[in-house]
């Protein structure tokens, strides 16, 4: 009995210490990445390549899902608003929910599973095949050469992807609401413009997407860098990246929303 209690407590303690330790290492890793960003900015070609692999290659999934999310919002919103005779407010509903919440959050979730997992797998595999160690042997800092460009590439891509997601979503809502169902086009746009504030809504959405971009990227990079150098270790790290960053996005979103839209 006594033994069982101490064993449970010991396991809990070791879990806590491990988690704290990992968080500490991740934070130091984040600091190290920022510190070694100089090389990446002196060689923008490295960052451009990462923008290509994280941003451009995620375009299709972002644009298509944005369009469909907007179309579904248009359909569902119309059904509900119609019962109150205010289907002209469809523009407000679609635009505000996309710009404030769905754009940054869903784009970040897609980004985590599309680009984050790829980052983890790539760095994990580079570690498993001892490419990172080889770089160190050649006196090339792998954090400066591999990690920092990936970080900045992803952080630059993320807000642009979120903006495209929102824009496509609003276009999808327009397609369903105005073109398909026949909500008045003038009031769709004018009510939207009256309700959406550039600083309050659009800018806050951009800030959110930047924060999500940093969180997803740093989780993905750290998981890859920290992965056990085996096939199984890389696969587990990839899974952990997607799970952890999805949870981090949703938790951060709540905190940011509470700070940004408290007064509204």
């Amino acid at each position: 009995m006594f033994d069982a209690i101490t064993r449970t407590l010991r396991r809990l303690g070791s879990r806590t210490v491990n988690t704290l330790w990992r968080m500490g290492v991740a934070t130091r890793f984040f600091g190290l990445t920022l510190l070694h960003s100089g090389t990446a900015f002196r060689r923008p070609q490295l960052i451009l390549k990462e923008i290509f692999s994280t941003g451009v290659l995620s375009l299709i999934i972002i644009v298509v899902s944005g369009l469909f999310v907007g179309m579904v919002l248009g359909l569902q919103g119309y059904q509900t608003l119609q019962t109150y005779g205010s289907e002209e407010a469809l523009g407000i509903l679609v635009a505000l929910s996309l710009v404030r919440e769905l754009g940054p959050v869903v784009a970040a979730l897609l980004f985590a599973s599309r680009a984050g997992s790829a980052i983890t797998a790539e760095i994990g595999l580079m570690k498993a095949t001892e490419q990172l160690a080889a770089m160190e042997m050649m006196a090339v800092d792998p954090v400066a050469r591999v990690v920092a460009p990936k970080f900045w590439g992803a952080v630059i891509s993320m807000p642009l992807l979120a903006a495209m997601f929102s824009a496509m979503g609003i276009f999808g809502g327009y397609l369903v609401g105005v073109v398909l169902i026949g909500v008045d086009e003038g009031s769709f746009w004018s009510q939207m413009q009256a309700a959406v504030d550039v600083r309050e809504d659009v800018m806050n959405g951009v800030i959110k997407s930047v924060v999500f971009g940093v969180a997803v990227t740093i989780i993905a990079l750290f998981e890859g860098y920290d992965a056990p150098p085996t096939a199984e270790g890389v696969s587990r790290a990839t899974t952990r990246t997607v799970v952890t960053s999805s949870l981090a996005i949703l938790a951060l979103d709540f905190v940011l929303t509470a700070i940004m839209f408290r007064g509204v």
Partner: protein
Amino acid sequence: MERTTIDLWVGIFVAAGIAALLFLAMKVGNFGGFQAASTYSVQASFDNIGGLKARAPVKSAGVVVGRVSEIRFDNERFQAVAVLTLDQSFAFPKDTSASIMTSGLLGEQYIALDAGAEETMLAEGDALKITQGAVVLENLIGQFLYSKSEEEAAALDGQ
């Protein structure tokens, strides 16, 4: 992949992203919407502004002619003061009245200006004399119940 191809694609990507941001700012938001180059502001005091918020539209005959730029509380007269920023191209007589209206049954609140008949026009810093505050639903119901009970009392007296 070729370096020039990557450059091209990244260029397209960044341009599309910036275009999306501009679309959100211009077409979806109100950046470049009602933003008159030259404006003048007048004040209007209300007993009750209801749910009126800063940036609410000011309309005359249903046309947006300005926006509410500021709402504050006048601690001497215990009234709400709304500062209306009006487009310079619209001039209103001095005895114009302002009232707080609601668009639709549950819609947003706005200030409606009813032009008066005086010769002189409103100028920067003027105050609107005749105002009509927001209709408070509770007061309306109270009044209705009060008049209803009066009616019933009168009917009982008549019997």
